[in-house]
């Protein structure tokens, strides 16, 4: 029975990998951007936008849902950032919990910009504003779930709903699906893979156009080093991009982070972005900050803020173990003290040799 269950899980795992690879191979040139590729959580941003492999991280479950399998408790999270010199602002709110071995959560990510102008040509054939303006907004709602399949493997899925709108012009809605796996190679190293937006459903616009949401295949690792160091690395395959980050916790409540990413920009060129940040956590309340340095245009550098809460699990009392002993020796109570004559057994000796007594001369009598 146990072997059948194990085989079934292996088959499911293999099937999931195959699905992910097929989806990756079949990806056409997608055109609609997934707003969640912005990055979820200032911790992830500070560590180079790595979050494929972050077991138990409430923000990472919306990138690789398998991370939800390792949630320790319920929690809430939020994020705010302002991009492009304040022209595009994003807010994220989310929550997660774990119930009967399944971790799950939901989040909302919303962004907007105002003041787009319609244009026309004037009497001199010059382009000019026609006097009308409109606004833009997008929102994404994601529901993620993850479960441990065995003591090493976890899998998850996330359903996402997209909405994009230009006021007075057109709007579009759609949905897609993310799939993810985590594999704990050992206590220090965890590997992960996520396929994002694997469904060809896309976003349907009021103009009658359907556009697929950009599909992505991501792989990552999470490696714990001594002295509270953690290294994360992710690879995006569509298009290729590399992310890496490190976190050091000099104190239990303080984390220092740094990261970088190399992102292609087309025409055989790429841009390197640098990130840094800190995290504070006291009694489950967490504050994370990330600074993002835009390598393509310095003025676009910006900040990310995350506020989160997850009650800390009660820690088990430490057990003081006895002096190491290879075996357990039963202790036998000593016998009570009793005065017992000790009778020495006669020693068996050889028959004494006849000892000739020396002749004793009689004593002379006195006269």
């Amino acid at each position: 029975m146990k072997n059948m269950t194990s085989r079934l899980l292996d088959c499911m795992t293999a099937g999931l990998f195959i699905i992910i690879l097929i989806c990756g191979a079949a990806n056409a040139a997608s055109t609609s951007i997934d707003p969640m590729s912005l990055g979820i959580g200032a911790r992830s941003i500070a560590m180079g936008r790595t979050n494929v492999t972050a077991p138990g991280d409430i923000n990472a479950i919306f990138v690789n849902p398998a991370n939800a399998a390792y949630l320790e408790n319920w929690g809430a999270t939020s994020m705010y950032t302002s991009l492009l010199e304040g022209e595009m602002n994003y807010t994220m709110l989310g929550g997660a919990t774990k119930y009967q071995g399944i971790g799950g959560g939901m989040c909302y990510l919303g962004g907007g910009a105002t003041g787009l102008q319609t244009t026309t040509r004037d009497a001199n054939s010059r382009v000019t504003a026609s006097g009308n303006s409109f606004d833009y907004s997008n929102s994404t709602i994601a529901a993620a779930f993850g479960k441990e399949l065995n003591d090493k493997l976890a899998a998850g899925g996330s359903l996402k709903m997209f909405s994009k709108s230009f006021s007075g012009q057109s709007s579009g809605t759609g949905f897609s699906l993310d799939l993810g796996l985590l594999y704990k190679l050992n206590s220090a190293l965890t590997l992960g893979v996520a396929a994002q937006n694997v469904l060809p459903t896309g976003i349907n616009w009021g103009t009658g156009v359907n556009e697929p949401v950009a599909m992505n295949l991501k792989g990552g690792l999470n490696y714990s080093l001594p002295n509270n160091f953690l290294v994360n690395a992710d690879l995006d395959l569509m298009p290729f991009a590399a992310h890496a980050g490190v976190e050091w916790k000099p104190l239990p409540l303080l984390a220092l982070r740094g990261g970088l990413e190399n992102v292609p920009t087309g025409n055989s060129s790429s841009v390197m972005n640098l990130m840094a940040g800190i995290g504070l956590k006291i009694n489950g309340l967490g504050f994370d900050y990330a600074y993002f340095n835009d390598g393509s245009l310095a003025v676009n550098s910006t900040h990310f803020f995350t506020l989160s809460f997850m009650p800390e699990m009660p820690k088990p009392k430490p057990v003081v173990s006895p002096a190491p002993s290879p075996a357990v020796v039963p202790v036998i109570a000593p016998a009570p003290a009793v005065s017992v004559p000790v009778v020495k057994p006669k020693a068996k000796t050889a028959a004494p040799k006849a000892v000739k007594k020396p002749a004793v001369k009689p004593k002379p009598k006195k006269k």
Partner: protein
Amino acid sequence: MKKITLMVLLFLLPAVAFAASSTNYSSPMSIVGAGGGNSSSSNYSGTSAVGASAVGKSVSANYIGISGGLGFSIYSGDTTPPVISNTQMDGKSLVSHDYIKKDGTLTATVTDETAIDIAASSVEVDGVAVTFANLTGSSSYNAATGALSYKLNITADGDHSISIRAVDTSGNTTIISQSLKVDTGDLKATSVYMYPNPFNPNHGAGVIAYQLSKDGDTSIYIFNMIGRLVYKRSFASGQAGAQAGYNEVSWDGKSDFGETLGNDIYFLRIVSGGKPIGRTKIAVIK
């Protein structure tokens, strides 16, 4: 009776002669010392009656008039004003309030059905006029083709008035005048637009239009809604896209990966020296 007849003949003879020999005039006819000819202008100047002529004066080769001691003259002539066309600065069309280079070259085609009076026609910059006859060096006027070329030599930043006054030999006048700007400070980009906006790449290429305060190395950056660079083009100072004044750059709505961008918002930056100097937002909607 004979005297009366003679008087009538004296009055009628000029009219007959006039009718027989003038083939090139056109109405209206002006009488008695009224100014001969018409003047007209386009764009900004008002009209003015030009060329008051005393009795007996004729200045046109195209009319036949008789003025004499009888106290009036009847004549008609060229009343068509000169034509000023193809006005450009450094090869680009001009509109009032455009930026220009302080040493830019103004060109135009100045023609007339008769002839341009090069002593009366002039280019005027901030009230200082130089007649066509006195154009030298890089500046010239070719009477045969009507090609006018005038090299500016503006020394101060700010708004400047530039006019072309064309006068034909009949005294007809055409004036065009523009208020243009010179800015030799840091490069600026204004009036940055995407046309059309919203933009549908499936309907053909659009244009990115902007004014530059002077020639300068310029780049166009386009970012998507998560701040990722998707398109970049650079232009060297003086080339199309990096010239003082109005610039238009064609864009087909594709990223540098060759993919047509999806329906979404995009953020355009005009960049010079690593800093954005102009901005606009683009809506791609198919």
